[in-house]
């Protein structure tokens, strides 16, 4: 008992021990409410049951019909370009709503409070042009006025010894104006 960390901490400072216990309790509550993205990114730790199929969806951006590649970049930039395209595509497919839009609509009934929070916790509209321009410039492909930027969903199958492209669909596209 006397060797327990919390006991020793309590002997040293009751305030610190209380803060630690409060932290543990808060963490347990967050955890029990499946808010496993809080404080430390559990990112579900590959602990969810994956879809039992042999295909993968990939999202990429085309500038004037040329796909912007990102796997050549070092890890973080590659990851940023990959995930930014994926998450934006999912947002667009979901009627331009992300998690917080749905969460606020469900939890906050008062429209003025909801709008106040939405202004801060959801991206500013209209977003497509801004996002497309930012994505292209971040990927070192400037998009001058008149460029066509498209967001494409690819489906790749892995049921054969070598993977193959099954399908591609345009999710949205925009002509960059002046």
């Amino acid at each position: 008992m006397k060797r327990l960390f919390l006991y020793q901490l309590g002997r040293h400072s009751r305030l610190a021990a209380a803060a630690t216990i409060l932290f543990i309790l808060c963490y347990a509550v967050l955890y029990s409410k499946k808010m496993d993205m809080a404080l430390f990114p559990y990112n579900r730790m590959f602990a969810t049951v994956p879809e039992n199929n042999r295909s993968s969806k990939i999202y990429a951006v085309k500038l004037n019909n040329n796909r912007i590649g990102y796997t050549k970049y070092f890890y973080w930039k590659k990851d940023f370009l990959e995930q930014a395209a994926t998450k934006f595509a999912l947002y667009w497919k979901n009627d331009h709503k992300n998690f917080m839009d749905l969460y606020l609509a469900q939890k906050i009934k008062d429209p003025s409070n909801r709008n106040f929070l939405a202004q801060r916790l959801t991206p500013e509209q209209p977003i497509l042009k801004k996002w497309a321009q930012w994505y292209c410039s971040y990927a070192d492909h400037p998009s001058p006025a008149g460029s066509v930027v498209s967001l494409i969903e690819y489906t790749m199958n892995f049921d054969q010894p070598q993977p193959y492209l099954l399908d591609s669909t345009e999710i949205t596209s925009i002509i960059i104006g002046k």
Partner: protein
Amino acid sequence: MNLPVAHTGNYKRIRFAAAIVFTELLLMMFSGVSFSQLNGAAFFSFEADPLYWIIFGLKIPQTIIQHLWIGVIADILVLLLLILFLRNPGSNKIVWILMPLLLILYVTITGYLAHRNFQAGYVWFFFPFLFAKTVNRNFAYEATRYFLLFFYVSAAVLKLSNNLSFSPAHFSDFLVNQFSPYFLESNTGWRTDLNLFLIQHKSFSGFLYVSSIVIELLALIGFFTKKYDRWIAFLLYAFHFTNWIIMDIAPIGQLGFLALLFCREQLISPEKVKGQTSNFSKTASYKYVKKVLLIQLLKNLCRLVRNKLKKL
């Protein structure tokens, strides 16, 4: 009296761990992820996380990302404070600015990435250094260490609670998504070959998945003894680097944090906790102090004997 290692400024291992954090941040910045390099990003998304609600609610990331000059200043400040910390790990004043800044960097990056696969270890690394007094720092280090261990153990518990360890095909299904952009862009090599091999050999990939659960569970030992800290750290490094190869998930951001497991001897001092002997008394720094005191005692004894001899 000679002071224990933590007081004398002998922060060799802590500096080394902090140098890893510094390198991790430099790598991130040079690869194109920092406050200033995300300038103009418009889309962000996050889930149910009060930390994000507060920071985004205050419009901190939005303001930094929309103003290039603020981003540049924040990037320079992060690097400058890290250099200052490397020079003087004992100063908690630096950490009181650095840690919140790194937390904002982490929240900004992952908020605009809309995905939480960037490791947060480079933020939590600094928690023990928020405290000036050695005894407080010791406790903070202990708490951070437990949190680190809990992080890995809970990852294993999550997998076990979902019965994933008993379905070897699951890992193969996960792997289908990990390298697909490389195949799409025909940017293939030995890692994509390995990916295909593991997708096709479900039992072998299942074995690797179970091994990862075992490694994560081994961190549980750290809750009962500190003797195996470095072995736990080595195993977790192996786990992370294997993840990088097999799943294309880089551990950068977590490496310095894991290195804290090697710093125990320099952080834990033999101070008594309000008159009560703590279990810290078994640490190397305690032995060091004992040795120093013994040498001091012997010197004094020699001096006493010499003086007596002179008088005679």
